[in-house]
């Protein structure tokens, strides 16, 4: 595997693992699925393909950030503000 790409993939895995700690269904649930998702693609060698997969991983990070924000915003809104008419 090309070295710079390998570094990127490992960085992505670590970042996803970190953000998955707060996953609603549990961090171990997230970790299992993360591992199997990465393992499924372990034999991909084309750097172009790998880049596409890394981009998909970054997209998942963005989605998780949005998920966490909405969860927090909605909880705060429910707790501290009057329900909308």
């Amino acid at each position, binding site marked *: 595997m090309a070295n710079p790409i390998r570094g990127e993939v490992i*960085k992505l895995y*670590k*970042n996803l693992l*970190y*953000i998955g700690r707060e996953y609603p269904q549990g961090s171990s649930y997230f970790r299992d699925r993360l591992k199997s998702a990465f393992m499924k693609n372990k034999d991909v060698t084309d750097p172009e393909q790998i880049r596409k997969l890394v981009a998909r991983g970054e997209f998942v*990070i963005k989605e998780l*950030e949005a998920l*966490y*924000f909405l*969860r*927090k*915003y909605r*909880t*705060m*809104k429910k*707790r*501290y*503000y009057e329900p909308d008419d």
Partner: protein
Amino acid sequence: FQVGLLVSVKRFFLFLFEIRVKPDKSGVVTDGVKHSMNPFCEIAVEEAVKLKEKKLIKEVVAVSCGPQQAQETIRTALAMGADRGIHVQVAGKDYENLGPLQVSKIMAALAKKEEAQLVILGKQAIDDDCNQTGQMTAALLDWPQGTFASEVSFEGDKLKVVREIDGGLETITINTPAVVTADLRLNTPRYATLPNIMKAKKKKIAIMKPEDLGVDITSRVEVLRVDEPPQREAGVKVETVQDLVGKLKDSGLV
């Protein structure tokens, strides 16, 4: 217009956690509970970092008062974009008794020492829901305040703040230096991702004690008892309107 800014952050249980009162009613159960930055403080940090990114202020200093773990909260603020941190060490019984008055005295002393032009805080903390620290800090400094801010912008060297109030929104213009407290809709706080946390490790956190700032943190308030809210009683079903009226009369409501 280049200004320095102080942002205050507080650490408490993760907002999702269900709180349980200790059996001796002296407080809440704290063992093994995951902690994180107060949600309104996150919004305050985000606003501070945004103002720096717009080049309206030159430096963001994150401040937290508490035991060693307060540094985790400061690190989160640094990961979100603050430049450096100040940890005011308060531990044990002193920390349990640390309230808005003491924190605002510390913030006021730091604002003077750091020559900050702007102090931003969350509007309230989700543990005590006091909603006092920002206001008290402004009073101690004799600075104007823009509280419950849902929008903050500079107009020349004045600050325009849109505030969320009971009737709707109120827009005020205040002179700087000033204190602002953040409300829920001010912005969307960024997530402190692992790469940001790594980068933030190089940033400095200064450590000091309240005495170094000449602040006396003795509390004037003593917690006598902590109770859970009363359990909701089960509802009672009635068959007819007459029954309903009868029950309302019986309980003295009608």
